């Protein structure tokens, strides 16, 4: 008897690095107990309910007491990954502009795919809590464009399509980090 794989993957994505094994173990133990008392279907339902209800709490804390040098190191890695991603993104855009402007969805897919890959690379490099680091890194990138625009900087006005593309980087980078985290933890 095994808990639902998708719910297990969700736990691997949302649980803080230091508590993943503990939370997954608690859920597994309860799963087996309920499965033996009330059957697999009830145990599956309970596992899903517990996982979904735990999302806000598990995202709200981290047992990490990383030292200041480690935090600075993570910030520098995140910055380096962000710069590399922007460089690749610009290079790809330059190459494809020579070919000709395609439909929006193609551009969105291409840019977001790059963000997914770099989200995974970031999670690989920082090792612990990659999803959270990817989220804050992507948010930092978005704010770098949003703040000047809100402040009315004339060079930062862009069409709606560009904003959709930019905000999409957050879920894209988080997805990449989540995929890495699932592969590593489960």
């Amino acid at each position, binding site marked *: 008897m095994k*808990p639902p794989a998708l719910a297990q993957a969700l736990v691997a994505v949302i*649980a803080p690095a230091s*508590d993943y*094994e*503990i*939370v*997954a*173990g*608690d*859920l*597994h*133990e*309860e799963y*087996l107990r309920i499965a033996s008392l009330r059957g697999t279907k009830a145990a599956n339902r309970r596992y899903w309910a*517990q996982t979904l*209800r*735990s*999302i*806000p*709490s*598990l995202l*709200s*804390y981290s*047992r990490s007491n990383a030292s200041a040098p480690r935090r600075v190191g993570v910030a520098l890695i995140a910055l380096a990954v962000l710069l590399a991603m922007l460089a690749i993104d610009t290079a790809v855009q330059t190459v494809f502009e020579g070919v000709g402007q395609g439909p929006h969805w193609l551009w969105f897919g291409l840019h977001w795919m790059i963000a997914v890959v770099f989200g995974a690379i970031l999670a690989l490099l920082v090792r612990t809590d990659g999803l959270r680091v990817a989220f804050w890194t992507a948010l930092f990138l978005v704010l770098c464009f949003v703040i000047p625009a809100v402040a009315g900087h004339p060079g930062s006005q862009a069409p709606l399509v560009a904003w959709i593309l930019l905000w999409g980087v957050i879920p894209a980078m988080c997805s990449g980090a989540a995929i890495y985290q699932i592969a590593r933890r489960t």
Partner: protein
Amino acid sequence: MAKGEYLGEFEHIVLLTVLRLGEGAYGATIRAEIEHVTGRSPAIGAVHATLERLERKRLVSSWIGEPTAERGGKAKRHFKVEADGISALKHARNTLERLHSGVSLRDATA
């Protein structure tokens, strides 16, 4: 007791449950005991987030146990109430008793 050190309702419940369970206190048993005694069914994530907060306040301490087969080969984190946790529980009970004294719930109307 400083303002930030008062126990929230759920913190109070979790701390008392850890004390009730003694050596058998870890995430799954704490969650099950709360459900059994109070009728509330907390999410395991909420229990762990609360335990982490209590540990940061130094009211409980924890240590990692051995992985076991019934947990899919995963370890448990055991919890124990510390002296500051006992003091916090006594303080919470005294506060409630003082508030209750002189109040008759039988005559009270909603």
